[in-house]
């Protein structure tokens, strides 16, 4: 068995250990790379920067813990930008696992900005809408009357009828929301585009896991999405634009080395494949020893 055949048969557990090592080490020594900002990320950032203070932004947490490493950094960055720019924030979810994600993210960022001296008040500057099943039914209902879809809402752990919150005096239908940012690990952005955007004219931006980002480029080109954040890199780019590197940026070191190792594996595997194929051809063409 030559070296290439041995490499083809390498125990997969050694591959596992190598991947774990190259991803873990940069967490211990996090680099601070300068990223190239992609146009779709900049479009989301610029759109929010241009909104007037007091505009309402809805952030929809359509993901669960399994996608949190990619989408939580986006959520933190966008909520931070909105609160520091005096935009009003509504957090909501159409996904049952997004309920705790939205509450954790909102409360975490609110505490952080308050510690930094930014004055934000629950019910006036931010509000937490409860989970509602039904996906498109919820969006269609919001197009008619948000107050009917969400009879109650929560701020700082206190739940009240939705009309009691000052922020909701600005919002009656989906048209009163300046931008809806859907952070998703499923196909809810296309549902928002179809029902919220096409039907009611709402402005939609999406933050999706890297697996799905290609599926939404057609909507970006057709301007049905105002912008698109893709995976941990999209989150890191957004943090760089805000000037507040955080967990998204700190993960890019592991991304770099993990990618390089997988690229090396793929190239090594192909080199071995072609070497083995050439050796087999030579063996087939060699005259038989009589």
């Amino acid at each position: 068995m030559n070296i290439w055949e041995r490499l083809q048969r390498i125990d997969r557990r050694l591959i596992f250990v190598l991947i774990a090592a190259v991803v873990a080490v940069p967490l211990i020594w996090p680099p601070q790379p300068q990223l190239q900002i992609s146009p779709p990320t900049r479009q989301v950032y610029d759109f929010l920067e241009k909104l007037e203070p007091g505009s309402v932004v809805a952030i929809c947490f359509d993901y669960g813990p399994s996608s949190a490493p990619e989408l939580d950094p986006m959520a933190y960055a966008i909520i931070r930008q909105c609160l520091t720019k005096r935009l009003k924030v509504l957090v909501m979810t159409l996904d049952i696992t997004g309920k705790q994600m939205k509450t954790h993210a909102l409360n975490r960022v609110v505490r952080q900005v308050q510690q930094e001296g930014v004055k934000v008040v629950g019910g006036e500057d931010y509000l937490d809408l409860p989970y509602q099943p039904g996906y498109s039914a919820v969006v269609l209902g919001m197009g008619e009357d948000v107050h009917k879809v969400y009879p109650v809402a929560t701020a700082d752990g206190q739940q009240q009828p939705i009309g009691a919150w000052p922020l909701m005096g600005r919002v009656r239908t989906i048209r009163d929301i300046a931008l809806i940012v859907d952070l998703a690990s499923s196909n809810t952005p296309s549902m928002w585009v179809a029902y919220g955007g096409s039907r009611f004219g709402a402005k939609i931006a999406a933050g999706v896991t890297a697996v799905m980002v290609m599926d939404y480029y057609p909507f970006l080109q057709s301007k049905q999405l105002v912008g698109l954040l893709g995976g941990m890199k999209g989150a890191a780019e957004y943090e760089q634009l805000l000037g507040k590197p955080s967990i998204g940026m700190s993960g890019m070191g592991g991304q770099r080395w993990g990618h390089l190792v997988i690229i090396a594996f793929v190239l090594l595997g192909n080199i071995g494949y072609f070497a083995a194929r050439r050796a087999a051809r030579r063996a087939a063409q060699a005259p038989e020893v009589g």
Partner: protein
Amino acid sequence: MFVQFFVPHKLSQDALKYMTDWMRIIGTFALVLGIGSLIQRHTARIRQRHRDAPYSAVALCCFLAMVVLGIGWKTEEGSPFDWGFTYVFMPLDATMFSVLAFFMASAAYRTFRARTPEATLLLVASLALMFGRIPLHQALDPHLAGVAEWIMAWPATAAKRGILLGVALGSMAMSLRLLLGIERSHLGTGKEG
């Protein structure tokens, strides 16, 4: 609902409002149905003293614990239910999916081969994307990122749009079949037409 889309009259808009309300309420009961099936399966394994019956018992105990915590102490941040979500559900859910990173690396090493011209094109595109999505070197990054962004914005978008159109037309055809009663698999009859 199909006709409602084209009728702007207030009655039509009210009909949309009530129909969507009703869909949401019925959706609540559909969720419970799935849970019932799960309980049925695991209790059957315990009754039949299946080899994995102890694990099924653990699953049912954890289910009951979360239900009791959720209904008894509510689901707000800081509640026991929230604790169960944060320190049991979240780690398990996240770790289950993170295992894919290892299997993907192993599978890429063993099976990602440029056997045909099409596979070579796939390989080259994926390498270009992978290089373009990571910070390598200040001098290289703008060019690599530019190539990756161009691939995503133009040829890949064209292909994805073609797929999107095909899927949209297919789902429209299926919806029409459902409305016209040609497709009745959701009724469980297994027969058509």
